[in-house]
C-alpha cells in the first residue's frame, strides 16, 4: 500500500531535513547548557548544585509545583467537561477567557496580582491590616504560578473530548452508572494521555516560570527565590558555571518529565498491542 511521500528519496530528504533542523534549532541549545555547566568539571558542577541557596531554591520550586498541579488538574477537567459535554450560553466566551494567561505577558500577570494583593491594592490593604502576607512570600508565588499554568490541562482536553463526543458516557448513564463511576471508568481511560500531556506542560511551566514570579517574589535569598530566579542571580554574579548548573538542573527536570511521558506512552502502546 502506498501513501503520499513514501518514495525513498522524498522520505530520506524530509527526515534528513527534519533531523538537521531540529538538531541545530532545538538540540544544540540543550547541548550548550550542559557544556557550559560542566566546563569546569563535575566537582564544580556538584559544588554549585549542592550549595545551600541552590537547594533551598530547588525545594521551593518543587513545593510550588506540587501544589500547582492538582489545582490545575481539577480546574482543567471541570472546565473541559463543562464546555464539551454541555451547551449553554457563553460557552465560547468561557473558552476564550481561559486563554487570558496565554495572552498576558508574564510580567503583566505578576503585576496585576501585585496591584490587587500588594499592600496598596484593595484586597492587599485589608490583608495587611490582618497581618496576612501573600505577596513576597510563597503564597504569592503559588498564585501567579497557578495563573500562568491553568490553561494547559483544559487546552489539551477540550479538542480531544470534543472529538470523542459523549456517546459512551451517555450509554453509561442509561446503564445507571453514577457520575463518579462514569468519569473514572469511561472518560478517564479515553483522555488519560491528553491529561498526562497537560500535566507535563503544567509541570514544566510551573518549574520554569520566571517573569511573573520575579514580580511577586521579593527575591529573598533562601526564602522566596525559586530556581529560575536563583539562576538569574548567579548569572548576574558572574557565576556562569553556577547559572548553567542550575539551568542544567531545570533542563534535567524537563527531560525527566518528557522521558516519563514517553515511557508511559510506550507501556500503554505495548499493552494495547
Amino acid at each position, binding site marked *: 500500500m502506498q501513501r503520499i511521500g513514501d518514495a525513498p528519496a522524498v522520505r530520506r530528504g524530509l527526515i534528513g531535513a527534519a533531523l538537521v533542523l531540529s538538531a541545530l534549532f532545538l538540540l544544540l541549545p540543550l547541548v550548550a547548557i550542559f557544556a557550559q555547566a560542566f566546563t569546569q568539571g563535575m566537582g564544580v558542577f556538584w559544588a554549585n548544585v549542592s550549595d545551600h541557596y541552590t537547594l533551598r531554591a530547588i525545594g521551593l520550586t518543587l*513545593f510550588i509545583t*506540587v501544589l500547582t498541579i492538582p489545582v490545575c488538574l481539577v480546574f482543567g477537567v471541570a472546565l473541559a467537561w463543562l464546555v464539551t459535554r454541555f451547551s449553554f450560553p457563553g460557552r465560547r466566551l468561557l473558552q476564550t477567557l481561559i486563554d487570558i494567561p496565554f495572552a498576558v505577558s508574564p510580567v503583566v500577570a505578576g503585576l496585576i496580582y501585585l496591584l490587587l494583593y500588594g499592600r496598596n491594592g484593595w484586597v*492587599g490593604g485589608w490583608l495587611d491590616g490582618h497581618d496576612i502576607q501573600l*505577596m513576597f512570600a510563597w503564597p504569592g508565588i503559588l498564585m501567579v504560578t497557578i495563573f500562568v499554568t491553568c490553561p494547559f490541562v483544559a487546552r489539551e482536553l477540550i479538542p480531544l473530548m470534543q472529538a470523542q463526543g459523549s456517546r459512551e458516557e451517555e450509554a453509561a448513564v442509561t446503564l445507571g452508572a453514577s457520575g463518579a463511576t462514569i468519569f473514572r471508568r469511561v472518560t478517564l*481511560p479515553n483522555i488519560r494521555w491528553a491529561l498526562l500531556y497537560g500535566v507535563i506542560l503544567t509541570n514544566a511551566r510551573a518549574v520554569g516560570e520566571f517573569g511573573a514570579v520575579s514580580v511577586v517574589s*521579593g*527575591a*529573598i535569598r533562601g526564602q522566596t527565590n525559586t530556581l529560575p530566579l536563583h539562576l538569574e542571580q548567579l548569572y548576574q*554574579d558572574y557565576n556562569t558555571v553556577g547559572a548553567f548548573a542550575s539551568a542544567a538542573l531545570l533542563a534535567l527536570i524537563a527531560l525527566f518529565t518528557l522521558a516519563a511521558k514517553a515511557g508511559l506512552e510506550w507501556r500503554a502502546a505495548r499493552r494495547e498491542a
Partner: protein
Amino acid sequence: MFKPSWIRRGILAAALGSSVVVATPALAQERELLNSSYDIARELFSAINPDFIAYWEAEHGESVGVQQSHGGSSAQARAIMQGLRADVVTYNQVTDVQVLADAGLVAEEWQQALPNNASPYYSTTAFLVRKDNPKGIESWDDLVREDVRIVFPNPKTSGNGRYTYLAAWGFAEQAFDGDEEQIHDFMRTFLRNVAVFDTGGRGATTSFIERGLGDVLISFESEVNNIRGEYGSDDYEVIVPPVSILAEFPVAVVESNAQRNGTEDLARGYLDYLYSEEGQRTLAGFNYRVHHEAVVEEFAEQFPETELLRVEEVFGSWEQAMEAHFAGGALLDQLQRR
C-alpha cells in the same frame, strides 16, 4: 488504574519534603533582619553580613540572622511599598529611598539620620577598556568618536545607566560651557555610539566581556574594578575619567517594618556597622570609596583623584534630573529619537 500508586506516593513524598524545606525558617527563633538592596551588591553583603552577625553576637550576646534581597533599586523600593517587609534598605540612588520616605515608610529626615547624607560609601562612574586601551580612551569626549562603540545599561531601567548618562551630561556641560545645542549634539552622538542596551549593569558586563561587544564598558568604579579582578587583570584596564559624577549609596531604616518585626535596634546597629572601621574596610575591599580616615589612607592608591560632580549641583536636584531627563518623553527620549 490511571495513576499508579508509586506516582501518588512520589508526589506525597515530594510535597512533604519540600514543605519541610520551606517551613524551616519558621522554626528558627532568632531575630532576623531583611536588607533590601541593589542588584550588584550581592557579594558585598554576603561578605558583610557574617561579620556583622559576629560583631552583634560579641557586642550584645544575641545571635541574629540577616537575609538579603537584591534587584533593580527602583523595583526593590516598589516591592517595599507593596508590602515586602524589609527592615533596612541599602540602595544606589537617593530617589529610591526618597519615594519610601514620601510614602511614610522611611523617616522624613532620613538623610540627616546618619553621617554623609546617610551614604556610608560612594563611588563614581568609570570605564573598562580592553587590553592596552587600543582606542586610547581617556575621557568622555573620546566616547563620541566615530570609531568607538560603548556598552552601558539602559538608563530607563537601570540606576547604573542613569549615572552614566548624567556623568556624560555633566562633562558636556563643563566642556561646552552650558551651550545647550552643543550639549545635546554631544549626548545624541554619545547615545548613538551605544552598541547594546542591556536592562541591567550585569547584563551589560556580559555583553562586553562574554560577547565581545563594544570598546568600552561604563559602570561604577567599584564594579569595573571587580570585573577586572573577576575576568583577569591582564585583559582589561580601568580608566577613571578626570571628571565624573558622584554616586552615593544611601541607606535607611524602614521604620514601619522594623517596628512591626521588632528589629529597630538591630536595623540601626546594622547601618551603624557600615560606618565602622571594620565595615568600611570591607567596603573598600570591594572597591567602594569610603569616609573612615584610617581606611581611606590605607586604600589611597586604589582610588585616583578625580573631580566628582554632584547631581544636585549640575541638575538642581534628583527630582529635577529625573523629571527633565528620564521621564517618559523627556530629554533622554528626545535625544534617542532618530
